[in-house]
Each structure stands twice: as C-alpha cells, then as structure tokens.
C-alpha cells in the first residue's frame, strides 16, 4: 500500500485522539449523572473552592467528577510501564534467566568536558526500568501500517474500545477512605458497573479480529467472544453470593461491611470476605474468571501464538498494538483492585487497628494516600499472582476451557449461592449457630455430590450418556490383545 | 411486605412445571431406555395436575392482583390444556417410535408448553399473558422442529419461529402502549380509561388494542394472521400438531375472550373488529380447506375456521356486556376433544416411518380398523356440528350469544360456514369408508391409543347427554 502522506498520518492521529476524547466524555457524563452531590469541603484552597461555588451546581458536579475521573485513571495508567517491567523481570527470575536489566543505566564519561565535574564517572542504575518506556517510544514512532482491505474505521476503533474499557473499569472502585476523591461515582450498582464495563471488553477484541481481514484474527475474535461470555456467568454468580452477604451492590458498602470483626467474634481481624467460607469459594471462582476475562495465560486462547499467530491482533502494529498491550495490563491491574475490594477488604490493612488501640495507623488507613498505597500493594500482589500463574500453567485447550467454565465454575458458583442464601435465611430466622451448622452441612452435601459425580463409576456412566446425547460413536478403549496361548505353548 | 399467595390457584401450574423438570432429569439419567421412564413421569405428573384441577373448582379467586385469576373459564381452559397434553403424552411413544424420533426431551418440552397454555388461560395481567404466550410459543417452535431428519419439520419450525417472533413483537409493542396509556398492566383498568380517560389516551389505547389483537390473533391463527398454520401443521410431527391444535390453542382462545371481555361497556368498536376477523377466518378456513388433499393441511384450515367461531363468541362478549362464558366453555370442550380424537386416529395409522399424508391414505380405514373409522364418524359429526355431539352444542351456544349481541348477520355467516365445512369433512369420511388401496393390513391399537380414543368419544357424546348436570356443575343453571 502507498505510504501515507504526513497530512494523512496527522488526520489518522487526530481521529484517534478525538475518538478517545469522545469516549472519555461519555464516561465523564455517565459518572456525572449518577454521582451524589459534591461533598462540602474546606480542604481545597479557599479561592479554588469559592470559584467552584460560584459556578452552576451542575457544572460543579461535572468538574468534580472529571477531577475524580483523572484521579482514578492516574493510578491505573501511570504504573503500566512498571507493570510490564515487573512482569518481564519476575518471569525471567522464575525461568532462571536475567531479563531486561540494562536499559536506562547511565554511566557518565570521565573525560568529556561537557559533563559537570560532580557527575564525572558516576553510574546510575535503573535496573532496566527504562526498557518499557523505550519500547513505548518505539511503538508510537514507528511507521503506521494498516493492511489493505481492512475495515479502517473498525480497525481503529478496536484498540480504542479496549483502552476505554480498561480506563473506565475502575470507575466505582473506592481507592481510599476519602469520599471526596474516590470513587468517581459511588452509584448504588457499583459492582454491576464493573460487570457491565468488563463485558464491553469483548467488543475491542471482536472488532479488531473482524476488521483485520485475516482468518487468524477472526478465529481469535470468535474465541474471545465465546470465552468472555462464558466466564462472565460464573463471575456474576460468584459475585452475587457476596452481594447477598453484604446486602448492597455499592462498592463502598461492600468495603464497609468488611470492617467488622472476623466472623463476628475475632476482634482484631477484619471480616474480609475471603476469610468466610462463602467468600473463599466465591473468591476462588472470581479469581479464575478474572484471568479469563483479561485473556491472560492460561486463558489466552484468543491470542494463542502457536495456533493463531497472534490471534485478534495479528495485523496490528505500532501504537494500536501498544494500546492493546496497555489495555491488557491496565485491565489486569484494575481487576486485581476489584478483587481486593470485594474479597480483600478494599483499602484496609488486614488488622483492625482500632481494636488494638493503634489509632495512628487507623488514621493513615483512612487518608487518601494511605488507602491508595494499600490498594496499590494489593494490586501488585494480584499482578504477581497473574505472572506466577503465567509462568506455571500451560494454556488450556478450547474444550477444556469451555468445560471448566460451564461444567465446573458455574455449578460450583451456583451451589455456593444456594448455600449462602440458606445460611442468611436460617441465621436470620433461627440465629447464628443453626445457620452455620446448616451451611456446613450443605457444603458437606455439595462436596459429597461432587465426589460422587467424579467417582470412576459414575464418570464412566455419565461419559457414555454424554456421548449418547451428542450421538457420537463412543470412544473405544484400545483393544487389549489377549496373548494367544498356543504361541507360547 | 410479603403478599399472601393462594397456593391452590398456582398449584396445578407449579405441578406441571416441576413435572417437566423432573422428566428432564429422569431423561438425563435414564436416556432413551426401553421402559420410557420420561414418558411415565410426565403422564403421572399431568395426572396429578388434572386431579388437583378437578378437585379445586369453586369460586373466582385472585392471586397477586390480577396476575392469576382462577375463574370458571380459566379453570376449564387449564383442564383442557392439561387433558390434551395428557392424551398427547399417552399416544406419543408409539408415534415417535414409528417415525424413529429418538428424542425423549419431547416430554419435558410438552409439559412446559402446557405450563404456558395454563398461565395464559388464567390471567388478566398483560405481562403474565406475554410471558405465558412466550413459554407456549417457544416450546412449540422447538417441538415443531423435533423431527430433525425431515426437511419439512425444519422448515415448519423456522417458519413458525420467524412469524411467531414477529407477532410477539406486535404483542409486546401493544402491551407497552397499553402501559403508556393506563399506567397499569391489568386488563381491568381498561374500561375506566376507555370511558373516562383523556381523548389522547383513547387513540393510544385503540392502537394498543390493534397491536395486541395481532399478537393474540396470530396465536389463535385468526384470518389475516393465519398463513403459518397450514405449513406448520403439515411439517411438524403429528403428535406435536395434536397438541398445537388443542392445548396450544385453548390458551390463546381464552386470552382473546378475556381481552374482549375486559372492554366492558366500551366494546362496540372492539367487537366489530373481532367480528371482521371472525368472518375472514371462517371464510378462509372453510373455503380453502375444500381444496386440500393433505389431511394435516385440511385440519389446519379447519382449526382456522374454528378460531373464527371462537372469535364470534369474543365479538359477542365485547358488544353485549356481561355475557357469561358458557358458550366458550362448551365450544372449547367440544373442539379440544374432537380435534384430539381426529389426531389420535391419524397418529394410530402411523407405521414404519410412514404416516397418512393425503386423504387417499385414509382409504380402507373402515375395513382395516372399524373402531377408528366409527370414531372418526363421531368426530367429523362433531366438527360439522351435527347431531347429538358436543360440537353441535358449542356452536349452538355461540349462535345464541351472537344473537344476544344483535349480531344476527354474524350468526348467519357462521351457519353458512358450518354448511361449507360439511363438504370437506365428509370428504374425510368418504375416504375412510372407501375400499382399501395398497396397504390393507388391519391396524392394531395399543392400550393407550384405545384409552385415549374412547375418552374422546365418550366426552364428545357425553357432553350432550349429560349437558344439564354439566351446566349445574359449572354453576350456570
């Protein structure tokens, strides 16, 4: 194809930019219309506040929402280069190799006259941190290649949607205890908002795959849409159990509910959902679904390199590929945050400081930066898990993927939902002790049924039934040839 | 606040729904075994539901405002729906065996279709009506395509599905407009809005009526919306058609009647519209049926004509306020038993993957199986509306209603159409009593087939013989 002129290239960049801006605008409006009123505040400089107060109240809300949106985007957007570096370093450590450790190291010359004397011969080590920044610069300055016969508009739209999803996913997550700065919008369906936005993620991949005019891309897109929809179900059901325990879909209330003493009587530990039996099961399921939703190994079938070249982004290069990359890492990070919010007590540390009389620590926890740091630490822990799993497990086969989602995660999540509902009902009517006994009993029954179904006999039986149902010829075991007696005799 | 629910009213529906689920699980475990547990479980569940319906009876009862209304018409409608499902479930194994359709999921789907029909029978709430119609239709779409190796079956399923989805759109749009005009989904709010509401509401309401009439008319296969009927009846497996024509229609008929009834004093315009549909359906059904050589197509046109007769009853009730539903009850009773009987006869003739398709295939029935032939005589007489059979009684009551509503012209059209109908119905009998061509082996009937046939015959005749005690039981005399 002909090399685009400078003007064409500029137009392309402008189009990218404007589309992003429009998407962001929609995001801001969406946040605005559902935010509660801007809380009164004396913390900002008085002049700024006066200026704000002189504005139309709706405009104030819009500005506040925009400010919070920026505050929500920065902690996801800024760490991306570090996340990439962290992944590469950790992965190489696990694989017993070195990884990027040089880029960014600066050694000043001893002899050059241009160097000030105090810098002469000094060494600065960045441990390879600049590698991802260099990669980024490379990606955004390379020649923009778009294959012929692509659907241009959709080709450009694909990565933008992926980025949009990754950026807006954190819209309802409370990053800290300070309600003035976070979350962007404390809507009463915060958890569903996460589900909704993450379900939009399929479009980025699907459009990219479709518009590329490439069989591999199309296959990747098909896999992506099937995978995302399958795992959304189990994810939703597992979260529903947590919603029932909390009694609210509001993210802030989910965090607040986890401040209580653990299981109601262990005073110095918080009642993080992951420590309760229901939360443990839910958390386990959510964790697996989270991996599938972000297309990370072992669920990276949409981009499986040894089957589909690079799947949905085969035809992508330069900045658009970079956008996909960034979106993936941001989504990973944000999903870790969602996990921490729902299961790991959000921005709280794993000790109830008030209960042991350390009000100083409690104050740190409640401040904006303190809460943010705790959340970031939890996010990094999540990332570590992501990378660890990537280094450990091989990729699923497609049928294994579907079996895991539909035949294991969804039933287990549903069983957990039922047990949770029973526990809530019985605890409310008959008190806590019978409730717990009932819940434990139900779990025992569930495990027994599971073991029964997995037992060798029933599995053989169910397998034959399954084969019967899809009318395939039954898989035959290789025939064992009986040793013929005459030959030996 | 948790509302109190009269479980006796919801009970039968719940029993049938649970029966479907249990049958599905049983099928999952046992598969297509020789003993056919799936069918046995379904029959058992339907029997329980039938018994509970017969036991319930009594006065008009409401659950959750008007979402479930158990009045006489509703309970008779439910009874007939469950009854037809029961008969179909009884005679299906032989037919499915003969056509080599090895899909035991037929029975749970049949149970759920029954649930849809039952819900539609017993509601005055448009939301519940919509959900019920959807349950009924979607299971029927699937059942129509049950014969997977037959192109015609697939074609009928696709046709039914596409047209049905379109009709559903109309229905839903009408319901939305209804809600927009009245702020409620209960049919009973209609009258006051129609009579005392703002004039702009009236246009919205009449628009919504037109759209809902299209939706329900499609389900009843009333004339301008009837095109799917012959093709679907021809292609779908005959046992499915047997349910479609009886249990599947009862709900739609009752819904049409309820909707017409809910206009109260204000039904003149509505009544005239439905009367037009009725005339069209009767003409289309009876005239086009004369040209048919295929039994199932013939029965399809016959069911269109019968929908026309029901529409006459609905038009009368819309115009003459507070007519009671005795006419519809008797007509439905006769229609369901008669159609079921005809289909049982057709089903009994299926053998070795073949089934009677054209009228000529009926030839020699009298010599091959006199029981079937003489039963057919009873059913055909009932379809025409002649002699001491329940079809006659139903038509008579409908004619009386039409005259009460000052719709004498409609009554005349109906009588004329009944005479038209005699031509093609007698054509069936002529074939049945003609000498056999080709296969002349006697037809042996299994126990369930004999039982179903005798129940239908006894019902068709008994309704006339015992009509006074029946009326007394229904509390109408």
């Amino acid at each position, binding site marked *: 194809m002909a090399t685009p002129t400078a003007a064409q290239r500029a137009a392309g960049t402008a189009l990218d930019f404007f589309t992003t801006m429009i998407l962001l605008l929609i995001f801001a409006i969406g946040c605005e219309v*559902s935010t509660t009123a801007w809380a009164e505040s004396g913390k900002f400089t008085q002049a700024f506040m006066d200026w704000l107060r002189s504005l139309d109240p*709706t405009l104030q809300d819009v500005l506040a929402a925009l400010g919070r949106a920026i505050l929500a985007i920065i902690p996801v957007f800024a760490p991306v280069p570090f996340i990439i570096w962290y992944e590469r370093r950790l992965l190489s450590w696990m694989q017993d190799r070195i990884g990027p450790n040089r880029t960014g190291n600066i050694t000043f010359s001893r002899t050059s006259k241009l160097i000030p004397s105090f810098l002469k011969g000094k060494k600065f080590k960045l441990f390879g941190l600049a590698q991802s920044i260099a990669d980024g610069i490379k990606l955004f300055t390379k020649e923009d290649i778009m294959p012929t016969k692509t659907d241009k508009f959709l080709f450009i739209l694909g990565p933008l949607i992926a980025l949009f999803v990754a950026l807006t996913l954190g819209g309802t997550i409370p990053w800290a205890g300070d309600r003035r700065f976070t979350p962007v919008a404390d809507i009463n369906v915060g958890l569903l908002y996460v589900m909704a936005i993450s379900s939009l993620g399929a479009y980025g991949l699907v459009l990219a795959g479709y518009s590329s005019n490439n069989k591999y891309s199309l296959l990747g897109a098909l896999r992506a849409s099937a995978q995302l*929809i399958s795992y959304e179900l189990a994810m939703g059901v597992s979260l529903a159990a947590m919603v029932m325990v909390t009694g609210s879909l509001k993210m802030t209330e989910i965090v607040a509910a986890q401040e209580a003493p653990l299981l109601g009587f262990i005073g110095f530990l918080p009642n993080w959902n992951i420590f309760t039996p229901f939360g443990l099961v839910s958390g386990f399921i959510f964790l697996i679904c989270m991996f599938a939703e972000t297309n990370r190994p072992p669920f990276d079938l949409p981009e499986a390199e040894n089957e589909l070249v690079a799947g949905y982004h085969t035809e992508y290069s330069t900045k658009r590929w970079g956008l996909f990359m960034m979106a993936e890492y941001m989504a990973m990070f944000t999903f870790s945050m969602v996990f921490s919010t729902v299961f790991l007590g959000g921005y709280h540390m794993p000790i109830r400081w008030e209960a042991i009389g350390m009000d100083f620590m409690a104050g740190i926890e409640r401040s904006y930066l303190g809460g943010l740091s705790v959340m970031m630490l939890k996010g990094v822990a999540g990332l570590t898990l992501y990378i660890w799993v990537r280094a450990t497990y091989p990729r699923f086969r497609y049928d294994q993927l579907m079996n895991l989602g539909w035949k294991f995660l969804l039933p287990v999540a549903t069983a957990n939902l039922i047990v949770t509902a029973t526990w809530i009902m019985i605890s409310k009517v008959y008190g806590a002790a019978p409730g717990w006994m009932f819940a434990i009993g139900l779990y025992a029954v569930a495990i027994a049924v599971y073991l029964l179904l997995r037992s060798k006999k029933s599995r053989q039986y169910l397998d034959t039934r399954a084969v019967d149902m899809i009318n395939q010829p039954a898989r035959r075991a290789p025939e064992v040839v009986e040793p013929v007696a005459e030959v030996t005799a | 606040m948790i509302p109190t629910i009269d479980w006796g009213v919801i009970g039968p529906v719940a029993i049938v729904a649970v029966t479907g689920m249990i049958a599905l699980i049983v099928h999952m475990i046992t598969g297509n075994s020789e003993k056919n547990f799936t069918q046995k479980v379904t029959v058992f569940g339907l029997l329980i539901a039938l018994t509970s319906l017969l036991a319930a009876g009594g006065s008009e009862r409401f659950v959750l405002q008007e979402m479930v209304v158990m009045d006489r018409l509703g309970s008779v409608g439910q009874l007939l729906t469950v009854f037809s499902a029961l008969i179909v479930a009884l005679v299906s194994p032989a037919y499915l065996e003969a056509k080599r359709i090895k899909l035991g*999921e037929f029975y749970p789907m049949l149970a759920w279709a029954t649930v849809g029909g039952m819900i539609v029978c017993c509601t005055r709430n448009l939301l519940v009506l919509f959900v019920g119609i959807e349950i009924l239709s979607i299971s029927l779409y699937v059942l129509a395509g049950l014969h997977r*190796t037959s192109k015609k079956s697939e074609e009928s399923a696709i046709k039914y599905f596409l047209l049905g989805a379109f009709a559903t759109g109309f229905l839903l749009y009408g319901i939305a407009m209804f809600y927009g005009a009245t702020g409620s989904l209960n049919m009973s709010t209609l009258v006051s809005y129609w009579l005392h509401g703002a004039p702009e509401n009236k246009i919205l309401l009449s628009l919504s009526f037109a759209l809902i009439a299209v939706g329900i008319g499609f389900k009843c296969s009333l004339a301008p919306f009837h095109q799917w009927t012959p093709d679907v009846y021809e292609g779908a497996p005959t046992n499915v058609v047997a349910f479609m024509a009886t249990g599947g229609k009862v709900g739609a008929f009752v819904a049409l009647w309820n909707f017409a009834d809910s206009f109260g004093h204000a039904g003149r315009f509505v009544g005239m519209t439905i009367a037009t549909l009725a005339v069209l359906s009767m003409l289309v059904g009876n005239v086009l049926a004369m040209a048919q050589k295929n039994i199932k197509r013939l029965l399809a046109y016959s069911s269109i004509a019968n929908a026309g007769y029901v529409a006459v009853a609905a038009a009368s009730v819309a115009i003459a306020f507070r007519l009671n539903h005795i006419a519809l009850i008797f007509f439905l009773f006769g229609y369901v038993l008669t159609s079921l009987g005809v289909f049982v006869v057709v089903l009994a003739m299926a053998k070795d993957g073949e089934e009677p398709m054209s009228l000529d295939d009926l030839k020699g029935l009298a010599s091959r199986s006199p029981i079937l032939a003489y039963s057919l005589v009873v059913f055909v007489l009932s379809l025409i509306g002649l002699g001491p059979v329940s079809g006659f009684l139903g038509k008579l009551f409908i004619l009386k209603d039409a005259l009460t509503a000052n719709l004498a012209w409609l009554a005349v059209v109906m009588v004329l159409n009944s005479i038209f109908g005699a031509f093609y119905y007698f054509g069936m009998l002529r074939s049945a009593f003609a000498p056999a061509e080709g296969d002349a082996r006697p037809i042996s009937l299994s126990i369930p087939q004999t039982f179903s046939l005798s129940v239908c015959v006894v019902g068709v005749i008994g309704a006339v013989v015992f009509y006074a005690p029946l009326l007394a039981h229904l509390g109408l005399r």
Partner: protein
Amino acid sequence: MKITPDMIVFAMLAGMAALSAVGVVAFRNAVRSALCLVFTFFLLGFLYFALNMEMLGITQIVVYTGAIMVLFLFVIMLLNLGASHVLEEKSDPKKVIGIGFGVSLAVLLASQIVPVLIKVNAPTAPEGFGSPQVIGNVLFTDYVFPFEAVSILLLLGIVGSVLLAKRRLS
C-alpha cells in the same frame, strides 16, 4: 420552558441514540448496523441513568450491550454477512409503504406523547426509586409469579436450543 443542564444531557444522549438507531437501518454492512445497535443500547443505558434508574441502566448494558449483541456479532462474523451486496435490494415498493407506515406511526405517537410530556413539570421519583433493593423487593413479592414463569421460559430456551443444535441424528 427553562433549559436546564439535565435537558442538555438528555438531548445529547437521546439525539445520539436516535442517530445511531437510524444508523442501524441505514448501514448496508451488517457489522456496522450491529455496532450502531450496540451504541444505541449503550446510550439507552445512560438515559436510564439520567432517570435515576441505575439498576435498569446497568442491566441494559450488561444484558444487551455486553451479552446479546456480542453473540449477534459472533453470528454475523460466522456467517460472514459483511458482504453488503448480498443484502442489497433494488427499488422495492415495500420500502416506500414501510417508510410511510413508520412515519405515520411516529407522527401518531408523537402527537399523543408530546402534549402530555410538555405538561410534566419535574420528575418526582419516590425515595429509593430504581435502587436494587426496591427492584428486588418488587420482583420477589408483587411480581414473583411472572418472575418464576420467566425462569421456566429461560430453562426451556436452553433445553430447546440444545435439542435443536445437537449433532445430526444418524
């Protein structure tokens, strides 16, 4: 009539939704049409937000935008309906009649709805209107019967689709 910021937001959202709804029928390319539909559903979700119906809005996005339309695209891609010339039709009398009916329906509805809407002063929603708790309460008390009926509908939908999509019978 005073123009408030709410109205501006509404006008923007509604205008874009209407435009993309037109796009659904105007585009020749099936994928573009589907995407326009996605965008319409998405904006409808935001319109619900503007009416304080957060639950409904989010559900709209989760169900329609996030699940159903993805499967639509899935099917379109599998059938490769991207080729627009397949779907082209020459001048069709049905089209003209259809447009006529559509326009007259729109005029009729507008003539019914607009006079009513002008009289409305401010939205007066009761406390907690549209919150998950309120919807849950209504769903599990007053509307429990249709709710359970819908669950049967979904179940038979699953069973039916499996039944029809099973491998060919030998």
